[in-house]
């Protein structure tokens, strides 16, 4: 429950008097006020700096160090204060969390020291407020990357017993690991360069042929160029096949960008081999040769900066998209205006709006080729407006891209956006779970049988105290409030359809059940008052914990805690397994001698099956709320949820 509203709990409970005249059933007993001590001040001495606060403030979060009895370990008898040998600056944030309910992350604080303090005081970092959470996560991510970098730098020692395949892969990815890898790295680099230069030089005209025409070198020394091309493609093919062989996940390797570039770079050669000098397809063949220029992208394996550039462009996709979109808008507007402005003038180059696009683009990017110029006055006015606005539109998104590049460059690029997404989901899930803790905690307490049904239940006062210790007073009061609400919503004393809070799964199950609406066949021993609602487990024979059974408290709490989460553990998940309802109605036939709830339970849930050594009490006259009489002591309370 949120810290601040703890202050309003007395008010909410007082307001519950409004339900009393409406209710038809007696209300449960309020939890005792646990020898009401006055609220006292606690002194927390953190490395010499004294913080003082009310005890109640700290009790708001019983699952942290300061809120639980764990702080007693730090109590100093002589000075009557709690001494912690920790950082006082960070402690300020921690204490403010108790006071305000919001955890803040100060920017000047180092992330790892802050994390350590949080871990020491038992506070999960997911509850950092939204105002500081982004900053916290960013810093944490940077820190994690830094750690990973450090680890990678130290990864010089080769782990023993690597297979040949793994060695090769490691050599490919990290050229500095061995001499062979380095040699391979430089050889491939050299051949990429050779291949690119070959492609370029191929088109340079060198010398004239006998019929006075400039001939490009490629056609003059066809054989030489062909040999070089073949050699390069051989090397590239071999390299690709070796990488494919060494890759730990071949499928993933084949989908990666670098491998696609490799394939595109060498494919034209093979296609050219296959195709003959057919006139029809020679045009297509020429186009394919263009793809040879993709070999230059193979350099990106060799250059970190190129990779970062590529990643930047990918990550700035939205800014680039915006730039493109705004440019397109501006181009269309200005092209239209220029076209209509220049329509009047004769011999105008602005023959149509698409023809004006060229002028607009050239003007907006301040190129100004001058092949199209406006001649009318209106055209010149709008042309100048166009060029001025072009500067602005282009200048705006560019710094964003630049800063992105610099950030990524400094972080040495990681694919962390995707990881951040997953963490966000996990974080929200954890916060939702801890919030559900309140309603779950109430359902827990019901199951644990912390509510005594009858007002006069004298023998278990010690037990009440024991059980009460495990939940804070605040929680027990809150649960009592919810319990009163349950009791209020009963239609008539005769009907006893007591509406109770259940959790989502059980509700869905019972909803489906209600849809089937099969009234179970009643055993004759049941009183007729019982079978009104058609769902399973109409009779919830509640029985209380036998104080005699299993001597000590922790022992008989154990079967509960094995399956349930710790009663106070708001951070832990409660594992409720609900088996599918047994469809056979025969199992619901209640026999006299057997407690009905066991039957239902065995078909429904796997939680909290507390063995009932004591003989079942004849509760055939109905549910617990009829129990106006004296409580039976040797009765075990199992709430069938």
């Amino acid at each position, binding site marked *: 429950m949120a810290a601040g509203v703890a202050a309003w*709990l007395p008010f909410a409970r007082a307001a519950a008097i409004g339900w009393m005249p409406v209710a038809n059933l007696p209300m449960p007993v309020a939890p005792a006020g646990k020898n009401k001590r006055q609220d006292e001040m606690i002194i927390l001495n953190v490395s010499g700096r004294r913080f003082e606060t009310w005890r109640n403030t700290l009790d708001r979060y019983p699952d942290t160090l300061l809120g639980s009895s764990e702080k007693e370990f730090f109590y100093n008898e002589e000075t009557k204060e709690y001494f912690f040998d920790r950082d006082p600056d960070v402690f300020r944030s921690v204490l403010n969390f108790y006071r305000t309910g919001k955890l803040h992350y100060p920017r000047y604080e180092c992330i790892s020291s802050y994390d350590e303090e949080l871990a020491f005081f038992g506070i999960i970092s997911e509850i950092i407020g939204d105002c500081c959470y982004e900053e916290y996560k960013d810093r944490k991510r940077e820190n994690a990357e830094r750690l990973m970098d450090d680890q990678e730098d130290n990864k010089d020692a080769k782990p023993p017993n690597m297979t040949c395949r793994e060695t090769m892969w490691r050599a490919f990815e990290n050229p500095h690991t061995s001499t062979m890898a380095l040699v391979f790295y430089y050889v491939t680099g050299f051949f990429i360069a050779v291949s690119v230069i070959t492609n370029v030089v191929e088109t340079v005209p060198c010398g004239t042929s006998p019929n006075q025409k400039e001939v490009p070198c490629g056609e003059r020394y066809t054989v030489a160029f062909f040999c070089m091309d073949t050699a390069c493609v051989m090397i590239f093919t071999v390299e690709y096949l070796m990488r494919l062989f060494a890759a730990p996940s071949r499928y993933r390797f084949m989908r990666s960008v670098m491998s696609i570039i490799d394939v595109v770079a060498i494919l034209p050669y093979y296609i050219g081999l296959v195709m003959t000098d057919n006139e029809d397809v020679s045009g297509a063949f020429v186009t394919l040769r263009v793809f040879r220029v993709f070999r230059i992208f193979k350099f990106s394996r060799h250059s970190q900066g190129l990779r970062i550039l590529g990643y930047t462009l990918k990550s700035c996709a939205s800014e680039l998209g915006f730039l493109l979109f705004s440019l397109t808008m501006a181009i269309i507007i200005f092209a239209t205006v220029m076209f209509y402005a220049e329509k009047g003038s004769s011999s105008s180059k602005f023959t149509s709006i698409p023809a004006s696009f060229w002028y607009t683009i050239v003007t907006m990017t301040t190129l100004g080729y001058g092949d199209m110029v406006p001649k009318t006055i209106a055209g010149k006015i709008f042309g100048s407006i166009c060029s001025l606005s072009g500067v602005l539109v282009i200048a705006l998104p560019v710094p964003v891209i630049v800063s992105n590049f610099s950030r990524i460059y400094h972080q040495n690029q990681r694919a962390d956006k995707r990881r951040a997404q997953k963490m966000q989901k996990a974080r929200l899930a954890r916060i939702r779970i801890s919030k559900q803790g309140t309603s779950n905690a109430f359902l827990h307490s019901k199951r644990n049988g912390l509510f005594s049904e009858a007002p006069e239940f004298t023998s278990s006062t010690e037990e009440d105290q024991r059980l009460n210790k495990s939940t804070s007073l605040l929680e027990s009061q809150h649960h009592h409030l919810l319990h009163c609400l349950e009791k209020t919503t009963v239609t*008539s004393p005769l009907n006893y359809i007591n509406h109770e809070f259940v959790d989502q799964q059980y509700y869905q199950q019972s909803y489906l059940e209600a849809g089937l609406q099969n009234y179970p066949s009643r055993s004759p021993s049941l009183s007729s008052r019982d079978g009104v609602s058609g769902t399973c487990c109409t009779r919830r024979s509640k029985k209380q914990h036998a104080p005699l059974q299993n001597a000590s408290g922790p022992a008989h709490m154990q079967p509960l805690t094995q399956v349930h989460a710790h009663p106070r553990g708001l951070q832990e998940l409660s594992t409720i397994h609900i088996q599918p309802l047994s469809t056979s109605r025969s199992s619901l036939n209640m026999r006299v001698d057997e407690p009905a709830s066991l039957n239902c339970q065995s078909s429904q849930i796997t939680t909290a099956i507390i063995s009932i050594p004591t003989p079942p009490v004849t509760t055939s006259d109905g549910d617990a709320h009829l129990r106006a009489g004296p409580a039976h002591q040797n009765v075990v309370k199992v709430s069938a949820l």
Partner: protein
Amino acid sequence: MLSAIWETEGLQTVGIVVLVFASIKLLHLLGLISFSEDSVEDELELSTVRHRPEGLEQLEARTRFSRKELQILYRGFKNECPSGIVNEETFKDIYAQFFPQGESSTYAHFLFNAFDTDHNGSLSFEDFVMGLSILLRGTIQEKLNWAFNLYDINKDGYITKEEMLDIMKAIYDMMGKCTYPILKEDTPRQHVEVFFQKMDKNKDGVVTIDEFIDCCQNDENIMRSMHLFENVL
């Protein structure tokens, strides 16, 4: 010839420019675009209302709380609402935190009206503490009076079936959807019927304050539950 061309061109230009400015002005007139920042300045709400409660002595005299208890109450109150007053939205929020599974805003609305005795739309610390004083330390008569006031939505001295139905629906709404057994549509209505059968002695369709108090005093359960929350503070 040239001057004729320039004339037409010049006129065309002037025409275009005039057209452009006129359209901009029209848009400005229509409020679609605004030039200066002043026009879109929002009026800051007068949210800096500070309410200071009357002194501790007066409150001590008017309520049945001791000084210490008033101190504790005020500290909690002020912590939650630094401005010193609670408006209905905040009230609904706070109340909703106690009933996470259900929809408590209707009931919170009725509750707010019951606490807000001077009907000024906000709950000050005095209202809060006076209400609590009645509920926690008042006589049975006063408590029942308060409950009657809660049920009587229009404060006319009679509880009609419609009012009771509203209240009942609000209470059942707080239970939410996930209940066992499933809440049926007319459960509140049935509950109201039972209530009226019990309370409405002369069967005239409304419950007056005397009938209410009479009937409650004769009902053991209700009497006992009135003392339930006395140890709250």
